[in-house]
């Protein structure tokens, strides 16, 4: 990672709802500063109706703290993607509550959800989901276009993000001119360019060979080092091993790992507030 890009991209998101983290234990805003990024209670999602009903997600309660790197594992069809779509506000649950970075999402609609996705979430998909008619740079600029960032600023930050994933020299290439690993790195650059609170990745290495997988995972590792919260879905154990915590899913339920193992756990040291964050206090913030 270059110095240049760290200047341009603040290492951690600073959501309006959560003031800058403080070490002062007496501050009345103390717990608020370390609000979990993800806090769900009883999330349920059912597809279809009648005899063909599929209960893809059943009563999922999950907490992810700021700065965590969490891997979600489980068999195919266990509900991982369904969960990610709900966490990413791409879909709405049939029941349950979801607080994203302190914002209750259950009452939000269409454009409000779009704005939250734009500001707080960065997506990385298995099939890349880049827009094929646009250059790598234009793809990376897109989230900022919807955030009303000025054109010159957009260009500058998009270049910086491409630099972060080592693709500055491919900025003007179309997706059809890039390899799988490069495509996914462009997607990662796009996911982080708006400095979101959360990066969601659904089997990001599922279509990549081992070299490209290593490259992409290295980028995720670096991002987590700078304090970004990452939720990564995978069914490969060695990929999951890069994460600080592993959530196991089966038949639409979380089998293990739904809350951080503890303040001293591997990936959950929140930036600037080591050990201070507690899931119990955070849960109290739910309506």
């Amino acid at each position, binding site marked *: 990672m270059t110095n240049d890009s760290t200047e341009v991209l603040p290492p951690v998101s600073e959501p309006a709802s959560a003031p800058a983290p403080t070490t002062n234990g007496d501050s009345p805003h103390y717990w608020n500063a370390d609000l979990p990024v993800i806090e769900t209670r009883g999330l349920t999602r059912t597809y279809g109706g009648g005899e063909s009903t599929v209960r893809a997600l059943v009563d999922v309660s999950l907490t992810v703290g700021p700065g965590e790197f969490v891997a979600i594992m489980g068999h195919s069809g266990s509900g991982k993607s369904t969960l990610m*779509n709900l966490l*990413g506000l*791409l*879909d*709405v649950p049939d029941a349950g509550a979801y607080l994203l970075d302190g914002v209750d999402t259950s009452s939000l609609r269409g454009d409000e959800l*779009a704005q939250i996705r*734009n500001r707080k979430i960065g997506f990385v998909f298995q099939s890349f*989901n*880049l827009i094929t008619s646009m250059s790598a740079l234009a793809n990376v600029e897109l989230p900022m276009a919807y955030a009303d960032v000025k054109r010159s600023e957009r260009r500058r930050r998009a270049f910086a993000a491409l630099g972060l994933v080592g693709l500055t020299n491919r900025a003007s290439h179309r997706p059809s001119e890039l390899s799988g690993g490069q495509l996914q790195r462009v997607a990662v650059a796009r996911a982080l360019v708006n400095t979101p609170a959360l990066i969601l990745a659904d089997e990001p290495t599922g279509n990549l060979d081992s070299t490209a997988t290593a490259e992409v995972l290295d980028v995720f590792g670096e991002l987590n080092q700078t304090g970004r919260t990452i939720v990564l879905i995978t069914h490969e154990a060695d990929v999951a091993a890069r994460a600080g915590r592993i959530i196991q899913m089966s038949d639409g339920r979380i089998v293990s790992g739904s809350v951080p193992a503890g303040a001293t756990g591997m990936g959950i040291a929140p930036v600037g507030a080591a050990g201070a964050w507690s899931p119990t206090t955070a849960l109290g913030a739910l309506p």
Partner: protein
Amino acid sequence: MLTSALRSIRANLTRAALTLLGVLIGVGSVILLLGVGSGASAEVVSQIAGLGTNTITVSAGMSRGATSFQDLTVEVAEAITPDNAPDVIAVVPEVSTSATVAYGTVSTSATVIGTTPEYFSVTNSPLAQGTAFQAADAAGARQVCVLGADLAYDLFGADDAVGRQLMVGGAPFTVYGVMKVKDTTGGSSGNSSLVAPLTRVQRSLTGYGSLSSITLQAASTAVVEAAASEATYAIAEALRIDAADATFRVTTQEQLIETSTEATSSLSAMLAAIAAISLVVGGIGVTNIMLVTVSERTREIGIRKALGAPWAAIAGQFVIEASLLSLTGGLVGVAGAWGLSHIAILGTRPVISLASVWLALGVSVGIGVIFGGYPALRAAAMKPVDALRHE
């Protein structure tokens, strides 16, 4: 949003070209076909107007029994005077008959018109060669004549006709002049007629009976109707009948134009129907391609929504894209129609009206925007997860 629309048009040039073609053909053919229709009627109107817009024709009507026999005679024509018809500035009596015209070994049948020297100015029949006969020729019933352009050519070919002597129904006539070629749609067979002094034609060919018609010239276009009604009363008085019982017809050029326009309007209606069909076909083409575009790009819409695009941004992009395409196609169609309008179609030069341009542009662009935009609006309203799953 505009650059984004332009980029996606550039990325799918074939599709854009097809859309454009659909609109282009729709708009172009509507404008052109409507143009042919109005071109045809404009031609008829201008031919009739070429006869003079302030002329009035009086012709004998069908006689309904002996009691109401209303004969147009020279006396009747002379009864129309500046006193009883102040808006009439010229009265041109005409007799017409068919006769054999011969020069040397060439002989042909022609319409012989006997009239006064004012005939040439009132019926807008200028001479190409020679001179018209004068009042003195008419008074003296001289055996002189003026030929229509076709008749002169039939008899003399490229040779000069002026001064030659030819035989009309067995009597020798000297050619004074040849008329210019006239438009013939007005019904007059002016190009193959022979015009001679009324007195001479009556004496040699028709006898002193009734006239075929009387052509009147009004002082100006504005007083044509007044002149027509004055003439009607003057003639009725000369015939000693009530004007309400008149069976002779007094026809203004305007009425003649109206009658002829009615004839061409059925042609126009047919062309308009064909035009409407091509507009609909063009519109269906645009719609089809736009529907394909949106379903192909639902995934892109899903990606954009995932990245936080608000509904308006997505809807706006597709609507701008559809408008851009159909407007460009429409403008090219207008240009194409304008270009083709310089070529005669169905024997007529199309006259493009601004109204047809607006109509065609409006309908095509409307179809493009509505049918291109509507599916996009629907896709923009989808849940992002559904749009992303779209293959």
